């Protein structure tokens, strides 16, 4: 059987890679991709834990999987709106670098 420790470990590695991507990269598109990696790490953990407590034949428990569905949905909405913001950034600053959009900092 698949060792759950390793699944959770994979989830942690994936999450760290996502964090690194968001912190290090300066391209907004890649930063959004890294956010997706982090969301997927969480999804993996949800699925794994749902598999650990799957309920019984009569009353299966699918809370974790339903949550993953929710995360996928929200990720899609987030990307749609995020890409809209990116588009506005391209138009006004001609760059995908988030550092360019720092006008509100001052």
């Amino acid at each position, binding site marked *: 059987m698949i060792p759950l420790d390793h699944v959770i470990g994979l989830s942690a590695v994936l999450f760290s890679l996502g964090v690194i991507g968001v912190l290090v990269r300066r391209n907004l598109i890649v930063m959004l991709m890294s956010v997706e990696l982090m969301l997927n790490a969480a999804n993996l953990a949800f699925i794994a834990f749902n598999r650990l407590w799957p309920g019984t034949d009569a009353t299966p428990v699918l809370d974790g999987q339903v949550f993953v569905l929710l995360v996928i*949905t929200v990720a899609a909405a987030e990307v749609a709106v995020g890409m809209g913001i990116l588009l506005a950034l391209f138009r006004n600053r001609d760059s995908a670098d988030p550092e360019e959009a720092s006008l509100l900092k001052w």
Partner: protein
Amino acid sequence: MLTEYTGVLVILAISLVLIAVLLGIHLRVGPRREFPSKQDPFECGERPVTSPRRRIAVKFYVVAILFVVFDVEAIYFYPWGTVFRELGWFGYASILVFTLPLVVGLFYEWMKGGLDW
């Protein structure tokens, strides 16, 4: 239970091997006589002046966003479609309430001209 997926793995492996063989033979057998004007991207005999990777029209992008949203809507339809007999009219009402905002969204997009080409 997982055995039903065996076929997918097998067909994936076979197709990859097949494509590798086809491409491999082609790269081996085909001649190689390269010179600069042959390598030029096709431009009806002219030399390309600008990079082709220019910006695209926003409407393509609006279509992609709409696609993402409706794709997500579809994944809520699939489970409902398989069990809607057991759910009865309550399930029907919930899918109706689920669909309504998206129809409104589509209509909004339509009126705003996001679907005009």
